[in-house]
């Protein structure tokens, strides 16, 4: 085969959406190539259709999404023209796919070994003893410990990262020439993600496979891509070599996206250190005890272990960590949504840790929270106006006063005044987060806790919300505690960063110091795992010339 012929060629692929969708086509007239020995990253925000072509290649689209035009040529064979039996024979053998959610991607009632062996079984490969041997070989190849025991283990015993490795082993079993990865690391921790990305890069190099990697994260693109294709609302707006797309993007949408990638601020305010402290946390502890009744063994989990820090007026403190680090638990403790097992929370000179719920309630207006999930943090049956004014009403203001304030706040957060009478389901994710911010601000709090408040948002929307928070903090001089797993975001918005690992604080410092000179071993590991370290996203594009 000619080395210049691409392994996979998608030509003018069009997939229509059923009537009533937000646009007519899921993807329209898109074309791209994947070459053997190369990684192509398809980047886009949610709703861009980036996963569509991946599913279309494998023939895994649901019935109501049939390709309407175009070709998908895998080594010359048009996959769209093949019947189901032929496609079935090719799946797993010539082309393989790994998915986003490792925790639900494996059959819970079959052992790991059985599931990997199944690929070979359905294609009648490696008969007899060779099959078990091949499974063990694969488990070792993807870096899983003790393959012989792992063969007989059920998936629920493995972590997300381990399950993703099993998925990769399944995909590689028959050495397909094309590997499609649909956001495989999005649901994983940063350090695990780094390992999986390294694994995929290694495999691709060793086996000379063509890899199509779908993602929304430009850091990942910078880390592994050879070529990049950018999608917006079903159209492919730009594609080319990675260096060109990342450093000199041409299409306005690509430039906007890259400009929205969070980056370290050059002008981190250090003056904030002299501001008066608002909240003083000392030796905070929270332990969970799980165990079964009178016949089971108890497990003690120290979710938060002897944590101390100070938050000052007008300052943003970032709390970063991976899942299980305790960062979200700290947030819940500060808001007294869960009980505290030890330590003090000195707020305005008073220790609020020991207060009962009814004693604390009058003080609640000073500490507010912005939640993570824009789709679950607003009561679907209340109007926006009611949602925002409920807080002041609960603290004693009259309904009329509260509603007037609510209208003011809508303007402050950049929403139209008509939003007052509408319901949450009429707004987008970014707009709902603004409503959440307005709700929190309605009580004029001194401290705002943002618990992963931008994690569920697309990168461009995220940039806008971060900008809004920055603005509001400057204006109102609120102390902000920003809890996140995304180190880039923390670097952009925070004055000081607290790094958490397994319930303990391992390091504290300014973003510059944490990123450039991490002291603790875990921090070093964490920083090294951030994908695309070497890439410096280009600065804000110059304003568009007036047309």
């Amino acid at each position, binding site marked *: 085969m000619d080395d210049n012929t691409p392994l996979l060629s998608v030509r003018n692929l069009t997939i229509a959406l059923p009537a009533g969708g937000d646009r007519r086509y899921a993807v329209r007239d898109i074309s791209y190539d994947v070459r053997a020995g190369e990684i192509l990253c398809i980047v886009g925000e949610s709703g861009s259709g980036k996963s569509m072509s991946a599913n279309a290649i494998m023939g895994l689209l649901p019935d109501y999404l049939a390709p309407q035009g175009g070709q998908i040529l895998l080594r010359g064979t048009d996959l769209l023209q093949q019947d189901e039996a032929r496609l079935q024979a090719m799946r797993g053998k010539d082309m393989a796919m790994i998915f986003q959610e490792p925790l639900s991607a494996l059959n819970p009632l079959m052992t790991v070994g059985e599931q990997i062996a199944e690929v070979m079984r359905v294609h009648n490969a490696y008969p007899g003893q060779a099959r078990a041997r091949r499974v063990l070989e694969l488990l070792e190849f993807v870096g899983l410990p003790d393959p012989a025991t792992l063969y007989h283990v059920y998936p629920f015993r493995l972590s997300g990262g381990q399950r993703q490795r099993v998925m990769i082993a399944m995909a590689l079993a028959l050495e397909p020439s094309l590997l499609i990865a649909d956001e495989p690391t999005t649901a994983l921790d940063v350090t695990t993600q780094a390992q999986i990305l390294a694994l995929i890069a290694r495999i691709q190099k060793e086996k000379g496979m063509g890899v199509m990697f779908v993602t929304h994260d430009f850091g990942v693109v910078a880390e592994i891509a050879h070529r990049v294709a950018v999608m917006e609302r079903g159209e492919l707006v730009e594609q080319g070599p990675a260096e060109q797309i990342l450093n000199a993007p041409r299409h306005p949408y690509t430039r906007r996206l890259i400009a929205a990638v969070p980056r370290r601020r050059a002008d981190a305010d250090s003056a904030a250190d002299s501001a008066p402290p608002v909240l003083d946390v000392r030796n905070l502890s929270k332990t969970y005890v799980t165990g079964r009744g009178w016949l089971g063994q108890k497990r003690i989990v120290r979710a938060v272990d002897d944590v101390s820090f100070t938050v000052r007026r007008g300052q943003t403190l970032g709390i970063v960590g991976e899942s299980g680090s305790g960062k979200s638990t700290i947030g819940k403790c500060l808001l007294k949504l869960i009980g505290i097992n030890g330590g003090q929370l000195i707020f305005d000179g008073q220790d609020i840790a020991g207060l009962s719920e009814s004693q604390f309630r009058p003080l609640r207006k000073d500490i507010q929270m912005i939640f993570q999930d824009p789709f679950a943090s607003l009561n679907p*049956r209340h109007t926006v106006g009611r949602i925002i004014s409920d807080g002041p009403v609960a603290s004693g203001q009259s309904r009329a006063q509260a509603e007037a304030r609510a209208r003011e706040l809508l303007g402050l957060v950049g929403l139209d005044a008509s939003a007052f009478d509408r319901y949450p389901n009429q707004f987008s994710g970014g707009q709902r987060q603004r409503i959440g911010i307005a709700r929190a601000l309605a009580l004029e709090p001194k401290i705002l806790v943002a618990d992963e408040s931008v994690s569920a948002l697309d990168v461009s929307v995220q940039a806008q919300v971060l900008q809004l928070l920055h603005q509001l903090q400057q204006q109102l001089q609120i102390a902000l505690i920003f809890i996140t797993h995304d180190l880039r975001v923390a670097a952009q918005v925070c004055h000081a960063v607290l790094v958490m690992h397994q319930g303990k604080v391992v390091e504290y410092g300014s973003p510059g110091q944490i990123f450039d000179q991490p002291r603790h071993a875990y921090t070093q590991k964490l920083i090294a795992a951030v994908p695309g370290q070497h890439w410096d996203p280009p600065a804000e594009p110059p304003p568009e010339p007036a047309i």
Partner: protein
Amino acid sequence: MKPFLKRYMRNYGAVAGLAVMLVVVAIALAAPLLYPESPWMMVADPLIKPFVDPAYPFGTDMLGRDITAGLVWGARVSLLVGLLSTGVALVFGILVGAVAGYCGGRIDDALMRFTEFFQTIPQLAMAVVLVAVLSPSVYSIMGAIALVSWPPAARLVRSEFMTLKQREFVQAAIVIGQTPSRIVCTQILPNAMSPIIVSASFMVATAILTESSLSFLGLGDRNLMSWGFMIGAARTMIREAWWMSVWPGVAILLTVLAINLIGEGLNDALNPQLRKRGE
């Protein structure tokens, strides 16, 4: 309200069910007008076949009682018992479920043991024993049915409350300083109502079936003509007068079917986002 009605109307079965129920309710309400004499009165020759005499469209039983009158008056009993016993069961179930779901911890454990106990006991056997011991009357029947049907309602309400309590908008309500009672009433309950309403409709259907079973076994209220009783009385005459057992059964079947269809229609209309491809 309007989008809900539109969604409901799209389901032909649900619309049919609603139509049938309206007819049944109309008949039940009009019973004293249509047949002012008690259905227990012997009004004609015994064992007249159905569709023979226009005055007795569904025939008469072995004592000369008008079967059509029995069907019409029976509708009242079924609906009355079905609705009232479900109402009582719901009130109790919602109370238990809400407290268990919201409070959690030991209170939840204790209430759940209590609920599980009532759920494990065989329901019809319990109802039979209770009505027998308390002497059959419409009140003991309603009480017995309520007693055996509240556990599933409690479990449903509990699981709804537990899920909703963890939702971020409820946590937000706590954070902005609302009191627990306000949170339960304005935040949690309105969002829990949809599954409760759907469940309630199915409970009414089950209650009607249970009432007819009890009446069939001879545990019905002696003063009220019930469809189940009519079938029970017809048992010995099955060879000679098949129509005595067929019509009341068809009546029960149509009523319960209609309610089930309404329930499913409500479910689809109230939870449109849950309608996956497979439903």
